């Protein structure tokens, strides 16, 4: 038996003993996602326990160093863990912008103190984070942001407005891009972390077309932020922001698989022949994309991936995910159009379908991703 086989056997036994039965059932609504944080209301005791045991083991972030609250697993071991969790249908113990976005940026750009301070809390789901990037006048043109951070000695004074801040009203802390200099567009941006309970922070929810309200307008009215909460150097936040975006895009691209690698056609039941043909063509695309995701991850680990590849993954994955939900709606017919009925599980298909339309907008639109590929990979002129 190799070490990896032994690890697999131990992992399987541990999961068997520690993953509550209820956490092995598919998630039914958005509420089943566990976000953690100061104000999170657990749906059940099982949900809380699952987060606790996985957090203690560092298995919410299996490949982070153990000294920062991670599992300290090798890439191969982390893959085994993922496979074993999938084998029993285990839910992710934690859904977190801290894990998928801020964490990797802190690991790369944070001071030793910041790492020791924030990373273990992220791993255990104790701080829920939100992302303060977009502003009313700065969406695709993110570097056009205006929110100001003025020097107040040992702290900054932040004033301005953010928009589209997902879950700002439920988050504990924000990672936020601010302008510390107006001399150059990209060179005057800094990356700050601060508590959403700081005086001067307020949020106003925005309702989405799906009927849910996951994001907000966020206002900063002379918010004091200690200077040791600056990540990276002052005026060099754009590098941190871009690095983080790479991870965000990678995360969003995974949604093209709809969380599952199984053929869509196998789950939609009887459909008319033309739709069946469309679904089969979609399944070809999704299975081929699964192969590319696997190759991309392997290339990333081997240091062989082009730095602009996450843009391509994000583009391809999100366009597929939108197509998946168009097909689910088509297969569902009039049943899928019911908005609040019990039979439609509260309009789950329709709401999911509408939510996916944001996939090609959030984290940078598809057009922006294609522009990045054209410029940085294909080296087309003037792009």
């Amino acid at each position, binding site marked *: 038996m190799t070490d990896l086989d032994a690890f697999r056997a131990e992992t399987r036994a541990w999961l068997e003993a520690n993953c509550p039965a209820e956490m092995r059932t598919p998630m039914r609504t958005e509420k089943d996602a566990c976000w953690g944080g100061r104000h999170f209301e657990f749906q059940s005791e099982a949900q809380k326990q699952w987060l606790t045991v996985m957090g203690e083991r560092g298995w919410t972030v299996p490949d982070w160093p153990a000294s920062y609250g991670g599992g300290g697993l090798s890439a191969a071991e982390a893959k085994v863990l993922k496979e074993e969790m999938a084998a029993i249908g285990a839910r992710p113990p934690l859904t977190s912008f801290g894990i998928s976005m801020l964490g990797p940026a802190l690991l790369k750009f944070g001071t030793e103190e910041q790492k020791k301070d924030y990373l273990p809390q992220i791993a255990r789901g104790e701080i829920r984070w939100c992302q303060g990037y977009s502003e009313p006048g700065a969406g695709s043109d993110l570097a056009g942001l205006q929110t100001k951070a003025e020097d107040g000695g040992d702290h900054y004074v932040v004033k301005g407005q953010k928009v589209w801040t997902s879950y700002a009203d439920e988050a504990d802390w924000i990672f936020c891009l601010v302008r510390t200099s107006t001399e150059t567009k990209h060179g005057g941006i800094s990356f700050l972390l601060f508590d959403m309970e700081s005086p001067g922070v307020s949020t106003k929810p925005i309702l989405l077309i799906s009927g849910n309200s996951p994001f907000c307008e966020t206002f900063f009215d002379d918010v004091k932020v200690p200077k040791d909460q600056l990540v990276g150097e002052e005026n060099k936040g754009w590098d941190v922001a871009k690095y983080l975006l790479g991870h965000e895009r990678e995360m969003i691209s995974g949604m093209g698989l709809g969380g599952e690698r199984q*053929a869509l056609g196998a789950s939609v039941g009887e459909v008319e022949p033309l739709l069946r043909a469309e679904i089969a063509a979609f399944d070809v695309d999704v299975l081929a994309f699964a*192969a590319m995701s696997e190759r991309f991850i392997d290339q990333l680990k081997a240091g062989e991936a082009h730095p602009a590849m996450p843009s391509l993954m994000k583009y391809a994955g999100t366009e597929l995910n939108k197509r998946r939900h168009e097909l689910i709606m088509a297969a569902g017919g009039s049943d899928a159009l019911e908005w609040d009925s019990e039979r439609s599980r509260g309009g789950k298909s329709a709401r999911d379908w509408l939510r996916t339309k944001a996939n090609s907008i959030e984290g940078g639109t598809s057009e922006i*991703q294609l522009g990045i590929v054209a410029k940085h990979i294909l080296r087309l002129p003037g792009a």
Partner: protein
Amino acid sequence: MTLTDDQRMLHDSVAPFMADEGSIKTQLRHWRDIGCKDGFGHGLWKQFAELGLTGILIPEAQGGAGLGMVEAGLVLEEVGRNLTPSPFLTTAVAAVRALEGSAQADRWFPGIVAGEMVAALAIDEGRSHDPAKVSLAATRSGNGFTLNGAKQFVVHGASADVVLVAARTAGAPGETDGITLFAVERDASGLQVDNVALADSSKAARLTFENVSVDADAVVGEVDDGWTPLSRALRSGRAGAASELVGVAAGASDMTLDYLKQRKQFGKLIGEYQVLQHRAAHLFGEIEIARAAALKAAQLLDAGDPRADLFVSVAKAKAGRTSALAVQEGVQMHGGIGMTDEHDIGLYMKREAVLSEMFGSHRFHAAEVARLSGY
């Protein structure tokens, strides 16, 4: 899914070889313009042999390189990129897989390894790929069989020394049981070969069998169980065709990107227009996805993984659609010059059409994906 050092070395030697010796100008255009009956050069096939490529899948004990589909795929991607005409896919990949382990292998492998033999596959009888729908009849007579019927789309059929013929010894068309695979010499009496030029200037024969007698030892594998060697040939042929299609797509796309960077209209390089940039970037993504799918299929085949059939169909379907997009965008973005015979981009379009049909179109394979996924 990254390449090993050996695989990288193979790629690094094959890529410049194919670009120089197998270039469009020296091979495809040359043989086309002189009206060669084979559509490819035997000299180049010999060079393939000298590089150890003709025996790439043949076990070392039988004089081959003993490598797998991943390696064959690397070669085929370069073949596709340069539109290099050769019997590599039919002979060194599909036929070798069909013959492996049989008594017929001992007979034909040495010639294949030496680059002196060409083998062809005679499977399809109708105008679209449907390998179970064999009706060409093989009836027992004496200690052998008599073959009657017809085949089409037998690629390199007229150049082949041996043709692997799927015939029906039992059952009905549409059934996979009752098919027997025969190795028939091309000059067997009663076998009429009509050499047909295809759109891409390759050659695929129509064969007519009129009381063609073969000995019992012409059977590859078992009588009535030709589906087993045939499936091996089809799996590797399909995966190989997917890799070649990825090469065709990449070659067309590279040519187009070069053009976008040099052609000026309205005082700008046309590559500066965002509408073309986005289409080029989308195409690049599709090619990357198709390449990953082809690699995945090859790896699963080499590992003997049960999911191989599913991924072979995914790869063939994805590569077919992707290369169709690549050649269509290629001709369109070249504007008028793309419509001329003088320019190479149109040659990619013609090759794509033939390769996409060979071993099953993207529609055939999407239907396979559905069937293998249980719907």
